[in-house]
């Protein structure tokens, strides 16, 4: 790959820069490394308002004082943060008026991924924001959404068009110094999605963001902010893939959700980043993601559903802060690890308001030599009366070289609380598969049936077409692992 990078100082000096990438998609990538100038350059490139640069710099200063977390049950060689490029964008860089201006190679990539973006083929009931490397390349159905006042656009665009909204909410759920990776994201994020649902509005279609990492040695740091105003609801889906590389790529995203009175946010993820070579573990994405929702209003509800099937390492705990009285938090998760993948994932439910309820359904599937950990925390504040939590945490082992671990933490300073916890471990056995096969059912279909049975409660939460996708993904990943 011929590199002809424009340097950070080029951008700061506002000189024109050379294009010259011989990758399929013409991209513009910053030189590797991180310092204040890089952050200023990102902010300048994106023509951001002043508050945004302050936010970034504050986060960066905080990050410099922080250490990478070591408590998770994952192991990897130290990441060299100076050996990552913090900005990469497919060209052209000018604002796109229509899809015709998007690089056809990029469109083709998304189409290959089953996410057609052009008018004729795009999904009728799903609006898609496609993020390629660090930049949003297309958002479909925007006009139709605008008619009911729903804002769905890249966050970089929101910073131009609705800076007050962004300023009001950004960092209110995940503060800049929340954790190491969130601080890094806050300093350097380049794009992501922004959603605002106005009061009294049911979003007329599914919203979805599709992330694609394409350039080697680029970190991907997206930032998603979803605000659901009073008496509104939205269902949002996030999908992710990356091509195969030999080097590990860092993905450190932050997602913040805010639900006001009676608002209802459903956030689903199907994650299938490249997980590295199954034997050597070479390559693969390091997925260090902070996702948190705040049920700020009374009777609000936030529901996380995730199907995690990829990444070399997953470190992710979609959480809910149940602040409003009678608010509800839910977490439905399927995490599959195979090869030598490592996943440490789970959730936090923080009960602050009265009569707040949360439920956690976690399904971990581990195969081959992988390690799969569930980490869940349920925390009930002193004055959160009648809080309730139900947790169910099931593990399935495929083969006998993998491992599953559960780490439930419960913290309650309150006697009116009701907590229930159930856990189980099972195996797909050779005996079960033989039973299927002895009835003429193929091994592949047998695995699908068993896994679907195991994950039913979670799949049921996904929008139909994505549930089918998710099932296929799991079968594909497990086919070679059983027996």
């Amino acid at each position, binding site marked *: 790959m011929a590199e002809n990078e424009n340097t950070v100082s080029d951008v700061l000096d506002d000189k024109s820069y050379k294009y010259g990438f011989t990758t399929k998609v013409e991209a513009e990538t910053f030189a590797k490394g991180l310092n204040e100038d890089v952050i200023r350059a990102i902010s300048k490139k994106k023509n951001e308002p002043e508050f945004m640069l302050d936010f970034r710099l504050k986060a960066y200063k905080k990050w410099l004082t922080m250490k990478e977390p070591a408590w998770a049950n994952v192991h990897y060689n130290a990441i060299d943060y100076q050996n990552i490029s913090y900005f990469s964008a497919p060209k052209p860089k000018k604002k796109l008026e229509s899809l015709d201006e998007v690089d056809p190679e990029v469109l083709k990539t998304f189409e290959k991924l089953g996410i057609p973006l052009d008018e004729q083929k795009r999904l009728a009931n799903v609006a898609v924001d496609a993020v390629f490397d660090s930049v949003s390349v297309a958002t479909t159905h925007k006009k139709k959404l605008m008619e009911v006042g729903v804002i769905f656009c890249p966050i970089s665009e929101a910073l131009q068009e609705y800076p007050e909204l962004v300023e009001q909410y950004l960092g209110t759920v995940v503060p800049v110094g929340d954790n190491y990776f969130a601080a890094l994201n806050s300093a350097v994020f380049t794009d992501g999605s922004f959603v605002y649902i106005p009061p009294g509005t049911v979003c007329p279609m599914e919203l979805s963001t599709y992330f694609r990492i394409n350039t080697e040695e680029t970190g991907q740091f997206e930032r998603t902010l979803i605000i659901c105003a009073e008496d509104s609801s939205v269902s949002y889906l996030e999908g992710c893939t990356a091509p195969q590389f030999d080097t590990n790529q860092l993905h450190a995203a932050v997602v913040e959700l805010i639900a006001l009175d009676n608002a209802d946010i459903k956030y689903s993820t199907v994650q299938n980043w490249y997980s590295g070579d199954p034997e050597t573990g070479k390559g693969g994405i390091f997925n260090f993601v902070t996702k948190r929702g705040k049920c700020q209003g009374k009777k609000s509800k936030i529901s996380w559903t995730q199907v995690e099937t990829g990444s070399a390492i997953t470190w992710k705990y979609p959480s809910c802060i149940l602040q409003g009285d009678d608010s509800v938090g839910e977490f439905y998760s399927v995490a599959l690890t195979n090869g030598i993948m490592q996943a440490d994932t789970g959730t936090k439910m923080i009960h602050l308001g009265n009569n707040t309820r949360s439920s956690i359904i976690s399904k971990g599937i581990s195969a081959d030599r992988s390690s799969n950990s569930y980490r869940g925390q349920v925390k009930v504040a002193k004055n959160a009366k009648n809080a309730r939590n139900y947790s169910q945490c099931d593990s399935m082992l495929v083969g006998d070289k993998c491992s599953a671990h559960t780490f439930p933490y419960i913290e309650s300073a309150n006697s009116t609380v009701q907590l229930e916890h159930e856990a189980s471990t*099972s195996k797909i*056995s*050779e*005996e*079960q598969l*033989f*039973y*299927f*096969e*002895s*009835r*003429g*059912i*193929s*091994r592949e*279909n047998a695995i699908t*049936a*068993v896994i*679907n*049975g*195991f994950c*039913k409660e979670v799949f049921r939460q996904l929008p139909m077409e994505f549930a089918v996708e998710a099932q296929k993904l799991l079968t594909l990943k497990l086919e070679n692992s059983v*027996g």
Partner: protein
Amino acid sequence: MLEIKDLHAGFDGAEILKGISLSVNAGEVHAIMGPNGSGKSTLAKVLAGHPSYQATAGEVLYQGRNLLEMDTEKRALEGVFLGFQYPVEIPGVNNAEFLRMAYNARRVHAGEEELDPLDFDEILDEKMAGLGMEAKYKNRSLNDGFSGGEKKKNEILQMAILEPKIAVLDETDSGLDIDALRIVAGGVNKLRGPGNALILITHYQRLLEYIQPDFVHVLSRGKIIKSGEKGLALELEAMGYDWLTTTNA
């Protein structure tokens, strides 16, 4: 239809079947009896293709083809059915859905179209009624939490749906109450025909009163030590196996 010739088989090097020969023609019913641990289930599983067991010598011809070279799925699709002595529980997998998967796999193999859940449901209802099974078993997880007898009925339900050419029923009668035995046996009899065959593994003469065998074989320590007609089963019931095993030891 099925020709077993001097079959030796076992697992991990331990030989359990020590030279079995048995010839089953279309239209016949064979009963296999014998003491616990003599190798009856092993024979059944070897015929179905269980991966834990290896045949070390001899051969098995099914409709003139080498059965041992076919994989499990293929054997089933070609009409071999095993009614398990201990059907495995599969939590989370819907019973009706499982039955439909099996049914459709067979249809696709025969070049027919798959049936959708509604059409299949009609067939299922009819077969279940024939076995006196309540509809509630459709929506339960496969064998999961089924009682011993319920599991056995569910095996015969599968047989009724798949209509195999040769069925090996491994102690299907154990665990069935008296009424259930009669109903299940009636169900099996309905599936008998000039084109298919049945191997019944059982410890009890009672099943053989309902399903009359053409031949009875006694398996002991991995060998068939005696074969006869259905009267043999009565003798065994009265006298046990000792008189056979001691003279043969």
